[in-house]
């Protein structure tokens, strides 16, 4: 194709956040799909036959089973199993792992404990192992709190300094004393799940300055400041 016959690029609306709602995303997708046809009018080329991107409320073809789930409107197919008391304990621990700061809120305020509930309630072997690890770990943490800081105190009742005193001992398994190894495995699992829960949210991705999942009119080489940073100038 000659250069002058190439379809002109149609300017798409600039979307800053990656978390477009679905309707907006589909609208942009339709524009991108239709874009060449708008330019094509100049060249006398027939119009592209992608009139509009579909926007079904759900996928009628999907059987709704685990092997054939509705990916357009995803649903979790199992009941959550943690108690409200367990969720309250988890929320405190999630925030010890990812507290609020000036760039983003804390893990629990974005529902990390609810994601962990979804995870440990899933009907898969690995998840069921994590359920034992995490439910047992929460009780272990309360018992450790009581032993260290006094009767009647649970982890959630401790000061931040007291919580850190325990977590410092279990945050890195290679450095953890033998009698606390189970606690270290529990902590590491909750930290991993909290990390997934937090950074996959809109707030988490914004904090990381993730840019993507946005239709582009063309693909450009990396910006100069990136090349500079990597020594690729």
């Amino acid at each position, binding site marked *: *194709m000659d250069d002058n016959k190439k379809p002109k690029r149609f300017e798409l609306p600039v979307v800053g956040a990656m978390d477009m709602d679905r309707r907006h*995303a589909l609208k942009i*997708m339709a524009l991108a799909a239709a874009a060449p046809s708008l330019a094509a009018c100049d060249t006398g080329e027939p119009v592209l036959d*992608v009139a509009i991107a579909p926007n079904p409320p759900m996928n009628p073809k999907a059987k709704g089973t685990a*092997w054939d789930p509705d990916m357009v409107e995803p649903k979790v197919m199992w009941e959550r199993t943690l108690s409200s008391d367990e969720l309250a304990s988890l929320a405190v621990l999630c925030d010890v792992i990812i507290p609020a700061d000036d760039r983003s809120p804390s893990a629990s305020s974005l529902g990390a404990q609810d994601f962990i509930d979804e995870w440990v309630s899933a009907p898969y072997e690995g998840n069921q192992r994590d359920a034992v690890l995490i439910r047992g770990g929460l009780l272990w943490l309360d018992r450790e709190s009581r032993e260290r800081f006094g009767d009647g105190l649970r982890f959630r009742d401790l000061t931040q300094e007291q919580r850190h005193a325990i977590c410092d001992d279990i945050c890195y398994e290679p450095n953890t004393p033998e009698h606390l190894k189970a606690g270290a495995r529990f*902590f*590491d699992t909750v930290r991993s799940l909290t990390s997934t829960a937090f950074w*996959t949210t809109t707030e988490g991705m914004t904090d990381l300055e993730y*840019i993507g999942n946005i239709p582009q009119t063309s693909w450009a080489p990396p910006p100069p400041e990136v090349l500079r940073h990597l020594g690729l100038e």
Partner: protein
Amino acid sequence: MRKKAQQEYDVIIVGSGAAGGMCAYVLACSGVKVLMLEAGRDYDPVTETPMFQLPKDAPMRGAGTKEKPFGFYDATVDGGWEVPGEPYSSAEGTDFRWWRARMLGGRTNHWGRISLRMGEYDFKPRSRDGLGFDWPITYQDVEPYYDKTEMLIGVYGSNEGLENTPNSSPGVLQPAPAARATELLTKKHAASVGVPVIPAHLAILTERQDAARLSRELWPNNALAQRVTEDSMRSRAACFFATPCGRGCSIKANFQSPTVLLPPAVATGNLDIITDAMVREVTVNAQGRATGVHYIDKTTRVEEHVSARVVIVAASALESARILLNSKSGLFPDGLGNGSGAVGKYIMDTVGAGVGGQIPAMENTPAHNTDGASAMHMYTPWWLYQEQARGQLDFARGYHIEFGGGRRQPGFGFMGGLSSFTDGAYGARFKEECRRYYGSFMWFDGRGEMIPNEDCYAEIDAQGVDQWGIPTLKFHWKWSDHELNQARHMQKTFASVIESMGGNVTSTVHEDGARAIAAPGVIIHEVGGVIMGEDPGRSVLNEYCQSWEVDNLFVTDGGCFVSNADKNPTLSIMAIAWRASDYIVEQLASRSL
């Protein structure tokens, strides 16, 4: 999709993926009446693809499960290494995993779109090193079909003129997208350890197809084929450089059989498709000619029969072998067309091994979009031909390198392993460390050639039937030292590339190749089992994928492969299926079939 409009069919095609889709397209465009049977459900990427859905909207943030091994949003439905009600077994000591995708278009819906041509060496491997088999065809026989396939489906890339890495003809390839920062960084440093990095070839449109020119060049003197091809090409948009190809593509920018091959084939009026039709066996008459197929209608659980002049089995390599082995009769007691005893033999997968790395130079990289065409823009073709020829390597065949990393969309497992880099950071420090390390991880994967051997085969398991009453497969597998040594070489090479980048290797680099190599079936490049050849006593098919014993029976999928070069098989499957289809059209026209 359930349609059976014609009274009589010239050809039945079993399967709707790369091979079945291509045969249907070529035959229907050529005026042949075709009935396609697909074991899975109807599937439409245009309406079903979750294009922009985020991990946070999926169960478990999109984590892989046994039902969705590549994550929740992967295009594959009713598929995976386990399919409910469709078991298979392995001999003791074998750990083979059999991927199936029971859906219209099969695994073309989620595949990696990597489209590398086999080269001259790849068709004649035995002549070069005395191992495995030569193909009965040369690169020159297939070259025009590579060109045509690439023009039809749209493949981006560049012509680099490297050894055994063929160029495409002028005007065939789409422009390669600009390299990402991580790819440029890898290219710069890998060169210091002798590893080249060049633009990859993927079946993704980087610009809209020149529909008028391509349809004319593909189908001179065929107005019907030109029209349906041109219309189909015009309905495809160029990539908008967002959303993962593995989910499928609702704007048809990448290649999937249900968006690129089947719509123009249906538009000819010559193709009918029946989905949920699980084929059990090919039937024959007293003269030993194929008459049609028996299939189970999954919606009614009743067995049906359809007939045609020609039967093409394109159900995927191992499923095709299974159908032939299950097609037993007085004339063919060991399975149809299996006089050689080769059906089910010489099955191959790709050698796979990987290593991850953390690259300090990539920490705190300024924010920028790294989505691109979702998969790789650059790769490393096999580069040690001379060393291999001089006997300096302890394995006979090559591999290519796929790699990536950088500031990708956070998903399940994000920063899950950061503890080991930070001595267990948590709290405010954990948050800071995540920001610092984000985008500094890379992965390198080798994809290498496996040499066929006598110990890798599939047979009917006398013990089992699936839920459709069809006898199941049992797998036998043994790697040779060529594969194990190659896997070890891969890991060492990737470690050296990561170190050349000043990085830290984050995976175990095994001295024992058996620990480095991915389990057979995991790379999902299984081919062979119904091999072509020059000798009817040692092969199942001739060079046109035609059974030596039953001349109106063809197997056009990866089953016909006699070697499994490091070039991902899908592109070659389509080129070879097109070549076979041209032959079938000629034979039908001359009434030889």
